[in-house]
Every structure is written in C-alpha cells, then in structure tokens.
C-alpha cells in the first residue's frame, strides 16, 4: 500500500510511531500529483516548495521529541477560495489571478496548527458558482472515476484530489451542496457543518448566510478528525457560534440501533436516476437491517428550496463580489482612460459568464421595487423550510436521502443549460437554507458505474449523530475503499486524459452500468478497484 493511499488517521499513526517521515509522506503525495494531475487537473496551484519546507520543519519537531499533533504530517488540499498566506488564492477566477493573501483563513491556521501540511489549492467553479467545476475560469477538473465525467462542484477539485489520492484530505466550501454533491460524484466523504460551527474568516464569500467550510475525506473517521480541528468559535467571524468543542471521534460507534431515520418523500421524486434510486434504497435497507428505525417524513416546502436558494445566494453574491474592481488587487483591465472605465472593464473581462449571470440576478432581486417580491419573500420561505426540518426532527434523529439526483454527468452535458445544472443541487440546498449539517458518504454505484452518495441531514450542531450513522454504515460496507480507475471511457474521455491514465490503475473497465448498485455489502462493482 502506498503512503498516499492511506487515510489520514492511518498515516498519522505511522508518523507518530516514526515509521514514516513527514517529508517522505509529502513527497509521496506530491509524486502522485505529478503522476495523475495532468489528467485529473484537481489543482490550480501546487505549493510544492512550501509544503516540503513545512514537512522538513515538522520532521525536525518530531525529532526533537515534540509530540505528534492531531493531523501531524497529513497532506491536505485547500479549495482555492480559502486564503493562504503567501500562496496565490484565486477562486478559480481570472479576476483574482495573482492575488496572494497576506493572511491565512482561520481554517488554514487551525489545520497547520494541528500539524497538517497544505500541498496545494484546488480547482473549483469560479467563486464556487456551479455544480461541475466546469465554470472554473482556468480549466475543468475531471472525475477520477471516469475522466470524461465531471467531478461535480463547486469543490470538484478537492473531491477529485481526495478520490485520486492527490491529497489525503481536503477542505471544500458548501453554499448549496458544493461539498456534498462533488463528494457524492467522486465517491468520497464530504461534510457541510452547521452554519456557524466553522469560521468563515478567510473564506472568500459567495453567499455569506449560506457558506460553510467542510472536510472532504476518504472515510468518516478522517472526516470527524478534520472537523474536530477546524470547528469552534472564532472571534473574527461574528456568525461563528461560541460553543464548547465536541470530540467527534469519540462518538464514532458502529451502532445505529434505535436511531430514528426520517426518509423525506420529497427527496425521492421524479428526476432521480434509477441507479441512484437503487443505491439509496439499498443503503436504507442496510441501515434498517442494522437496527435503525425508518420513518416517512415530509418536508412540504422543499419544492420552493431551489427557487429560494437562487434568490438568496445571487443577491448576497452580487454584493460580495462588488469588491473585485481592479482598484486594490487582482486583475485590472489595461489601457483604460479613467477609473470608472477601468472598474467596468475589469469586471467585464475578469468574471466568467456564470458569475456575471448570478451578479445580474442578485442585482435585480435586490433592486428597489423587487426587493419585497423576491428577496424578502425568499427569506420568509427560508424560515418555512427551516420549520419543516424542525418538525421532522421532532420525530427522527436524522434524515437520509440521495445527495444528488444523478451520478456524475459528462463534461459539457449541462453547460448550455443552467437550469439543468442548478437541479444538481436540489437535495442539498435545503440544508444551507436551514443552516443544518449534512454529510455525503459513498453508498454504491449507479449509471456508468459512477459513485452514488448518500446524504444524511441532522439537527443544528448535531454533527455527532450524522458521523455516527455514517460511520456505522461505512463499517458495514466497503464503498469507501473503492479506488477509481483514473481513466476515461471510450466515448467521452479526451485524448490527453486517456493518454495520462495512471500506472496504478487496474485493468478493470468502467463501462458497464452498475449491476451491483443494490449490493450494499461491499462487493466491488464494475468500474471500481478494491484496494482494501
């Protein structure tokens, strides 16, 4: 087993026992990046020199006899919308090209304080606006399970990096599903914490009242570990909640007996792919077999969630993105005769079309005469959606649904149809609107042999229950141990992607639809390779 294949907790143990060095670990991951990222393109920036320097310093620390910290030596990737001191941070936007933050985001500070080594900044939909990472201002990222498919988005770079072993863990941000949906599509674990649990300081805002940073990991234990490090009050973020920290690892018991799981009927409606339906159904059966109690629940305002989201998020974004004007940092349109022209041209040239679309939407809905009809109305619906959850949680401990209605689609398939793209988030946006936590874990394979994610939603600040249910499911299944083929199917993969199919990939094909999607007990489905 290669070092880069290990989970964070396994790696940390080896490091603590001095079986492996930190520099050696970081070099292994950097080597994997060099090997496969030409095909996957998960990274916008690889911070090779900084990472190696920090790794050497950490090795010296341990050599001096200092104790290993919680994430000692774990190579972690950071979505490129979180500020890293001295490392370019772009939000995958031309308008921020060249911006090197003079400060670290709180999460970065905390990760590094726990010994993690940041190896690079990952690709994303520009300013986190999108569900496929195709809206990156630089290049699209590809799904390691099939390079002809998207990794999901907007944290597609982070999820692809973890899926392809280009990072042991990563951080993403989730505004409407941007951690959970790509985690599902890439077959990894992704958690969106309760709004206010993780500091947003240093996270470049998309929609401030919805944004939340979350871990993207190979398994649930790692997820709990990373969450434990990044969660907690930060005086620099007024919306971060002062609560005493919780030991998420402690609650990881493989036992769901008596746990009441709600199955919201609105999340199993039309538009769901059969493969996704089958995998989710099988997962529910697994949980039930393990002793969980399933109950039908209703979240009646769910049908307004997407519309509400597409009013609130663009409104906030239109204001949050106003600061990119070429005056102080980032891109500045050259050769303008005066300041006004410069600001206008900078924005016209610097932003991509989806970002512009949302700025226009948000500007419109906040305008005098429309504010009440749109924004204010959306805030009211938001309250109703939150109440739906409150009511559902009166009779169950968590809710389970598919994370995404479909598996990863092909590159270019939805780029011309923004509405189809927006539908990717239909099961995830509600958690952001209500501020509740949600996790996506691998639960099988669907169409084209692509991974399916199971979403578990919980009460405010009840990440512990989510992690426990996720952990129990994971212990009973083997989906999280599947490794992607890192190659393209014959129909959609680009030449370059196929050409750089990695050596470590097995010879198994990934063309047959998943016959074993309903097999919940760990048999490798077609398209996956079992490394366990």
């Amino acid at each position: 087993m290669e070092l880069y294949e290990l989970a964070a907790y396994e790696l940390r143990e080896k490091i603590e026992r001095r079986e492996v060095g930190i520099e050696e670990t970081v070099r292994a991951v950097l080597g994997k990046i060099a090997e496969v990222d030409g095909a996957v393109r998960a990274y916008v920036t690889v911070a090779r020199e900084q990472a190696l320097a920090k790794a050497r310093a950490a090795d010296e620390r341990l050599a001096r006899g200092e104790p290993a910290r919680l994430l000692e030596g774990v190579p972690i990737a950071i979505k490129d919308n979180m500020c890293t001191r001295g490392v370019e941070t772009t939000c995958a936007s031309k308008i921020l090209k060249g911006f090197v933050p003079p400060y670290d985001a709180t999460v970065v500070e905390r990760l590094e304080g726990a010994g993690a080594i940041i190896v690079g900044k990952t690709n994303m939909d520009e300013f986190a606006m999108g569900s496929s990472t195709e809206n990156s201002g630089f290049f699209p990222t590809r799904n390691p399970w099939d390079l002809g498919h998207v990794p999901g988005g907007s944290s597609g770079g982070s999820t692809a990096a973890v899926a392809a072993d280009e990072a042991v863990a990563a951080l993403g941000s989730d505004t409407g599903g941007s951690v959970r949906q790509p985690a599902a599509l890439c077959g990894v674990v992704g958690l969106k914490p309760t709004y206010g649990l993780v500091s947003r300081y240093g996270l470049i805002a998309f929609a401030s009242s919805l944004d939340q940073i979350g871990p993207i990991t190979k398994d649930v234990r790692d997820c709990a570990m990373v969450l434990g490090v990044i969660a907690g009050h930060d005086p620099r973020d007024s919306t971060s909640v002062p609560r005493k920290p919780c030991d998420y690892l402690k609650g990881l018991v493989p036992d769901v007996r008596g746990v009441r799981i709600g199955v919201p009927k609105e999340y199993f409606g039309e538009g769901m792919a059969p493969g996704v339906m089958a995998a989710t159904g099988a997962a529910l059966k697994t949980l039930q077999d393990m002793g969980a109690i399933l109950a039908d629940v209703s979240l009646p305002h769910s049908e307004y969630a997407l519309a509400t989201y597409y009013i609130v998020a663009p409104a906030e974004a239109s204001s949050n993105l106003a600061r990119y004007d070429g005056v102080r940092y980032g891109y500045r349109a050259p050769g303008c005769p005066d300041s006004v022209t410069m600001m206008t041209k900078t924005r016209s040239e610097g932003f991509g079309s989806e970002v512009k679309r949302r700025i226009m939407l948000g500007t419109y809905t906040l305008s005098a005469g429309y504010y009440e009809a749109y924004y204010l109305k959306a805030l009211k619906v938001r309250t109703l959606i939150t109440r739906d959850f409150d009511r559902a949680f009166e009779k169950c401990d968590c809710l389970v649904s598919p994370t995404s209605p479909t598996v990863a689609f092909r590159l270019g398939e939805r780029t011309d149809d923004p509405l189809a793209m927006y539908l990717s988030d239909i099961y995830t946006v509600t958690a952001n609107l209500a501020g509740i936590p949600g996790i996506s874990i691998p639960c099988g394979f669907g169409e084209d042999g692509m991974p399916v994610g199971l979403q578990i939603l919980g009460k405010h600040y009840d990440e512990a229950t989510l992690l426990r249910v996720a952990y129990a499911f994971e212990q009973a299944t083997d989906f999280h141990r599947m490794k992607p083929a890192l190659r393209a199917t014959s129909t959609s993969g680009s030449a370059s992607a196929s050409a750089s199919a990695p050596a470590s990939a097995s010879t198994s094909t990934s063309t047959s639809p998943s016959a074993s999607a309903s097999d919940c007990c760990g048999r490798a489905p077609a398209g996956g390779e079992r490394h366990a």
Partner: protein
Amino acid sequence: MPDETLTMSGEAGTARKHQTTGPGRRTGDAADESQFEPAIGLEVHVELSTESKLFCGCSTAFNAPPNSHTCPVCLGLPGVLPVVNRKAVEFGIRTALALNCEVAGFSKFDRKNYFYPDLPKNYQISQYDLPLASGGHIDVPVDGGGARCVRIKRVHLEEDAGKSVHEGGTITGSSFSLEDYNRTGVPLLEIVSEPDIRSPEEAYAYLSMLRSVLRYLDVSDCKMEEGSLRCDANISVRPKGSFVLGTPIELKNLNSFRAVEKALAYEARRQAEALGAGERIVRETRHWDESRQVTVSMRRKEEADDYRYFPEPDLVPLEIDEGWVDEVRATLPELPGARRERFMRQHGLPAYDAAILTESKDVADYFEAAVAAYGGDAKAVSNWVIGELARLMNATGTDIRDARVAPTALAAMLNMIDDGTISGKIAKTVFEEMFATGKTPDQVVAEKGLVQIADESELARIVDEVVAENSRAADEVRAGKDRAIGFLVGQVMRKTRGRANPQAVNRLLQERLSRD
C-alpha cells in the same frame, strides 16, 4: 462682542449674532417671500472618537501617512469579515440617550451598495430599517430667547469611506485616481432630525447645540475642517400657517456651519420666489457652490441611486439589553442645556453669558473652577473668561485645555484687583503676561513692578506735578468743566504707568483743585 470670542476654538457658537451678508442673506427683501416659511431637516454625520475603527482594530487617528492605518478588513480584501467595535456602539448609545432617543433593543446592520473606488468593498455597512435609536429631541436656544424643540428621527451607526484624489478633478475625467483608506471603516454616527427647524439661523443654532452635546459626551471632536462632522440638509417651504410640508430639496457640499446657514437662506429664498411665481418645486439634490454662493441642481429624484439595501449577513443583529443602556445612562455628564440653566440659577449669570460659557464643556469647567477658587462675583469671572481669555485664545489659536493661565491663577488675579493691589486696567497687562508665560499674577506684578501705588502721599505728589504742568486743564476744571478732569486723571495714570488707582487719583485731583 465679535463672533470669534463666542467659542473658545474654531467656529462661532450658539449665541453668535447673525451678520451674514451676501446673496444668501437677503431674507425680507422681497415682499412675497415673507408669506413663506421654511421647514428644515438636517442629517449630520459625526466621526466617533473611538481608538479603533468600527469593524477592525486599525487606528482612527487623523493625519497619518496615506494607507498606514489599514488592514485586510478595512481594505476589504477577499475573505475578511467585520466584527463590531463595542466602544462605537457604546458611543452611539451615549449620544442617543443625550438626544432623548429610545435605544432599540434589537437593531441590525445592512449593506448599502454602490461603486466608488474609495469604498473598498463597494458597499458600506450601515443601518437601514432598524436603526440603533430613534424618537428623540433636543431643545435649541434661538435668537431672542426661548428654544426650538427639534425632534430627532433616528440615530444610526455606519462605517466611513476613504478619500479619493482624482487627477483631473472628477472621477470620470481623471487620468488617474489616488486612494487613501485610512478613514475607511472609521465609525460614523448619523443623526437625522425631523424637518422641525424653521430658519437658517435655527439650523446654525441646532448644529452648534448638537456639536456642543457631542463634545460634552466626549464621543467626537466634531471638527468640520477635518471632516469629523459633516452635514446635509433638506429644506422645503410652505405658505405661513400651512400644516402641509412642501417638496423637500436636498442640499449637499455644506462644508461649514456658515455654509449650511447660507445655503439654506439662499434655498429658502429661491423656493419662495419660485412658489411666488407659481412654479412647482421638483424633488432634487442641489449642490452648494461656495464660490458663487448659489445652489446648483445635481440630480433629480427619479435619477436617484438605488442602493439595494439588504441585511448584512456577516454580522449578527445588535442586541442591546437594558442593563447596558442603564450603565451608559449612569455615566452621562451634565449636558449643555442643563448646565446653562444651572449657571443662570446658581451663578446668577445672564442667559447670554451662560450660553457662551456652557457651549464647551472645557470652558464651563474652567469657569466653574475659577469661580470656586475666587469666591467673589461669578459675573466678574465670566467677564474675564468670555472677554480677555477668549480674545487671547482666538488670537493665538489656543485651546482652553492648553491655556497657560490656570483657573486658580485667574482667581488670584481677580483677588488682587479686589484688594487694590493692581488696577483693573493693569490687570489686562498682567493677564496678557500670564497667558503668554504661564506665570502667576504675583510673579508678573512683582517682576514688572506693577503694584498699585498705595502710598497716597506719593500719589498726591504726582497729582501736584500734573496740575502744575497742565494749568489750563486745571483752570477748566476749576471753572466747572468736569470733562477736563478725565484728561488730568489720564496724565497721572501715564506718569505712574497705570499703577495708580483711577478712583483715588480722581478724588485727590478734586481735593487738590478745590483747595485752590
């Protein structure tokens, strides 16, 4: 008394007499104008004198090198978040209470969106529909006695913008612009009055009163020249006796209290003339052109900016419990209005003196310290404070806190006048020296030999000399021309270099001449 003596520093104060001239001040010229009455509301922005900015820890100090008081937060770098400065909220509460407002238990911040290079986020964090406080009032003393009660509509917190310098004058025509973000994020308190002010003079008095209150509270230094106090006005006119307000016009670019007054006077007249001529007033914003002394139309209301206000998602609502409000209330000082009343009652001062003395807390404190040390007539102290002291401070640009004459020294000097050690006339010389050097009156008198000649025989000798040298004047006095005695007294004073007591000289002269 000239304007400048009425306040101890800077601009003229509450009780200042209005002697504005020029095109702005011709009220009463036109007969039809007197049929109309203006209704004026003022929107005042004051920079709070907190040590750090509203949402970050940067210093608020004025006059620092450009962009030296900045950080990622006030520069609006990507990813930063605001955190409310508690002191600024406390200053807001303090001001709100002094203006008799109701402090909201629940208020929130909103974003006001507009693009300008000196606004780093291209939105300003302000308060829109739920301000910090509302529903207050202050009593403004007006000319001819009495007071105007001006209602305060709202008081809210917001952040200041930076400063732009456009090479070429305006932003659209400039070849480049320079930005200084030192002021960006400095806490501002916006104080909005109802349109209760009835004349430009009252507007002036309102501003003076407001500034006085803010300085008493120690929440702002209110220096218009440094931009720490700014004012926009709205004015409408209506036929006298009408209860319906006319169409308001907003006035901008009012850079001094005087400019506010002049622009309002100009605008009141312009609107009255327009209405008198049967024209309709159109809602618009007008710019005060200081050099031409006229208001110029900037933009019509329908072209007004849409600021797309919405609740600031990066901040939680401001919840202020009554305990905090009570705590702040308990620390409120005696305010100028109350102090003025007390000065009249307790020190027996005329309203005029009381108003001038209480406009600045420092001056009022100085006065009371001197009265306490002196023990004599408070009016005498008042005369010196608003007379000589104010004159010297204005002439030298000195703030009363830096004045080298301590209140006790003034009291000591007044005692020397009372016990005849120095004459009232010599006292002015003594005081000037005290002001310039910080010496006590004893020292000054001793060093300069200014002690009054107490020895009457010496004085009588000088009187004899003067009578001998001015026989014609002496004859005139003897002939009953009383006026001539003044001349002789003056001659004695000159010979003694002011060290004689004029009353004593007068008496000695009368005695000497009646003997002849």
